[in-house]
């Protein structure tokens, strides 16, 4: 009954991942960068779930749960940093926040 196969799912995941990557690369606003990172994480999760589903094993879903936990903590810390950055530098331009350059 299945017309679609594992390749199709993985290709969707790859497309989503690359779209997120483009977002990270082209945007200057930190908020947009964070959003794009979320897209990428989600795409990675999709690939995991697809792999788990391909072999009928729960491991893929377990990995997705870990990605979820990681994304949640990343977003909370990231947003706290964004707020502090905005309060201190009055800008969200990632290109201007270059204090770490050598």
């Amino acid at each position, binding site marked *: 009954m299945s017309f679609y*196969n594992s390749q199709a799912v993985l290709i969707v995941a790859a497309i989503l991942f690359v779209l997120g990557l483009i977002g990270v690369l*082209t945007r200057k606003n930190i908020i947009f960068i964070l959003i794009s990172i979320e897209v990428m994480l989600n795409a990675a999760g999709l690939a995991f779930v697809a792999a788990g589903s391909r072999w009928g094993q729960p491991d893929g879903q377990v990995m997705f749960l870990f990605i979820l936990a990681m994304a949640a903590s990343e977003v909370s810390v990231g947003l706290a940093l964004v707020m502090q950055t905005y309060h201190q530098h009055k800008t969200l331009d990632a290109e201007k926040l270059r204090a770490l350059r050598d």
Partner: protein
Amino acid sequence: MPLLFYTSSVIAILATIMVITRYHPIHALLYLVVSFLAVAMIFLSLGAPFVAVLEVILYAGAIIVLLIFVVMMLNLGTDTATQEKQWLQPKVWIGPSLLALVLLSEMVILLMQGDNADMQVTPVEIKQVSISLYKEYIIALELAGFLLMAGIVGAAHIGKHKKKHLHRFLQEENLDAENKKMKQVEETVNN
């Protein structure tokens, strides 16, 4: 089921394209919600209802609300949108996009070379997921717990507004200084 998968895939990809091309953060986030909901549908079609629901609850329901919340608190409005418009010139995005597309094409070629099996759509029981979560992955689970704890503490600490607490002597000094200023102003006015 294939229909469900293909429809939601197309929606997911389109919505994600919209996400990365919007100027206004809230609009981007709304499209991101759509994208996540579509991915949740993909999960459902892959026989993983549990993670589908978690995707909705946590990604769409918590993480993105958090992002929207911050956007609202920072009051990023139309100014941000115009700024984004200025930043997003073709010369800025064409190079990286082409590079990313190269990556995509390579990945697709590699994926096409790989094994091509039909998906099993028999759902994986939640019970199985939980059992393997608490058996083989128990260490990883605990580490994830640490990570979340660190995330909470880190966010609470970083996000804290640093209040300036003047020592009471300094406060008095400040008051004295202000009083002096006031007196000077009064004198000049009187003169």
